[in-house]
């Protein structure tokens, strides 16, 4: 069964098409990364899936139930959408008690989730006194309240210290390992790469990729970077590398050789055979960030400019 499935999902805000004819399917179980540049339509898509926003077109299901009837799946879904939101004048516990009452859950569940997210001991302090990281934990606790089959989290590690990030990452992995699905929307691609099994990539409201992380990373370019110990040996190194039929380029005192990373040992042997001693030999591969930027654009500023041009094109 699919955890999430959408077909032709579209949402317009006036002239702006925030989400355009998006179709994807997320299998149940595991961690799914939901990524895209700022303003790409991630939050709009999530809100449509959770019944907060009505689609302008298209259909979708969450845990097998149509998104037009969120009441059929709400008890099985926990969500932290954008920033955590609470009543500052209430304690962390009372905030959760209020949400537990809304979901018809026993008070004991509040203590359970407080312990899971590591807030036990501070639960009787007012939420307004919490640090950003603690508020994030409280938001996560609220999302975990219904012991959800599907957990939707927007920037779950925002504001957490490094230890907290590792802790939450492990929590999400263990949560997903039990057959449950975690959807993580984040702009921290290194963070996403460390935990996701599948990815959905959106740009300007259009789907760029939906599938496994492995499938996307298959498009990642690999290279070997070598540097001769003596700068005078660079021409000789270039000569022997090109003689192997490999393409390369000199970058400062380094030579970038466009071969699979696993061929780094062979590069070392070729250099040694030619009498060139290397002080550095590094196999490198594109990170998810590099692949993502190649797919979506280079920067927010550039994307904003492209978005503006796109809107002008639609308007003309």
């Amino acid at each position, binding site marked *: 069964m699919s955890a999430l499935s959408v077909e032709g999902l579209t949402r317009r805000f006036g002239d702006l098409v925030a989400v355009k004819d998006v179709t994807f399917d997320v299998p149940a179980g595991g961690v799914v990364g939901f990524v895209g540049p700022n303003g790409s339509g991630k939050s709009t898509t999530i*809100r449509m899936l*959770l*019944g*907060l*926003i*009505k689609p302008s077109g298209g259909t979708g299901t969450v845990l097998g139930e149509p998104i037009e009837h*969120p*009441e059929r799946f*709400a008890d099985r*879904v926990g*969500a932290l*959408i*954008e*920033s955590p*939101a*609470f*009543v*500052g*004048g*209430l304690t962390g516990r*009372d905030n959760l*008690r*209020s*949400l537990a*009452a*809304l*979901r*018809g859950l026993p008070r004991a569940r509040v203590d359970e989730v407080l312990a899971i997210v590591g807030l036990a001991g501070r639960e009787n302090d007012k939420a307004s006194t919490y640090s950003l990281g603690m508020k994030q934990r409280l938001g996560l606790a*609220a999302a975990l*309240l*219904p012991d959800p089959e599907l957990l939707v989290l927007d920037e779950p590690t925002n504001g957490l210290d490094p230890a907290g990030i590792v802790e939450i990452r492990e929590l999400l992995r263990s949560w997903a390992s039990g057959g449950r699905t975690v959807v993580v929307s984040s702009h921290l691609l290194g963070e996403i790469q460390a935990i996701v099994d599948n990815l959905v990539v959106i740009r300007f409201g259009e789907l760029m990729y939906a599938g496994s992380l492995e499938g996307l990373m298959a498009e990642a370019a690999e290279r070997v970077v070598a540097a001769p110990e003596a700068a005078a040996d660079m021409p000789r190194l270039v000569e022997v590398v090109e003689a192997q039929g490999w393409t390369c380029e000199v970058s400062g005192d380094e030579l970038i050789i466009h071969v699979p990373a696993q061929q780094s040992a062979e590069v070392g042997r070729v250099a040694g055979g030619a009498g060139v001693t290397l002080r550095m030999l590094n196999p490198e591969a594109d990170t998810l960030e590099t692949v993502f930027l190649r797919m979506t654009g280079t920067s927010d500023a550039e994307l904003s400019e492209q978005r503006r041009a796109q809107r002008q094109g639609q308007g003309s």
Partner: protein
Amino acid sequence: MRPFRSEFIRIWRPAFFYGGYGVMAGFAALVSVFIYTAAKTAPAAPAAGQGFGFATVAQIASPGGFLTALSTVSGPAGVVLLALWAMAVATDYSTGLIRILVQAYPHRMKLLGGKIAALGAFSLIATTITFLIVVFLARPLARLEGIKVEAWRTDFASHFLKGYFDFTLALMVWGLIGLMLAVLTRSAALAIGIGIGYLLVVESLIAIVAPDAKKYLPGGTLTNLVSGGTPGLSWGASIGLVVLYGIIAIVVSLVVFRARDIVA
């Protein structure tokens, strides 16, 4: 029931305690003291036309006179409840809590219904406290000012119950108007500003331009009801209009809340 319990936990906090019960109780005590101490010296309201006046000794000493301060208290108390209801709704939008609530409980009509019920229960306690302060302060204040209160014994229970009913109903509708404005504007500041601005400024201007129309407008009708009706608009007609305004506020709030996207 779930939305009611959830909302009640959220509003049972110091800001609502002191901002609701405390301020309303304070107003009730302050206005009562002012009404009784000013009765002998301050001018009465003009018989016709615009102008502000105070309760006279004769009015206070008449049957049901122990509730004289109530109509004056109802204005500021109503504004407090309008602001509290508006804050309770608009804060959900400004903090983004509405996202969590609607995701957790997508039955929007029931969700808002629970909020109305919880705020109604909170307001019932507030109006009861305020009403009782007005009643309990009446006798000692009248004694201090040397006003005879023997006539208060005449139909005391019916005056008491009718006064309590009118006051509570009027204040509930003040709250519902705050709710409607907050659902429409999704901003506490805008909702409170529009509500108070309309009731205190716009209606006053309308009263100058069209004096006969004022008694049918929300603010005029609410004050009229707590005053027990006037020759221009009977008590029964006042109740009917107030209930109508309350129903309009509820229906508009439910329809808008159900249809609107949650983009907060």
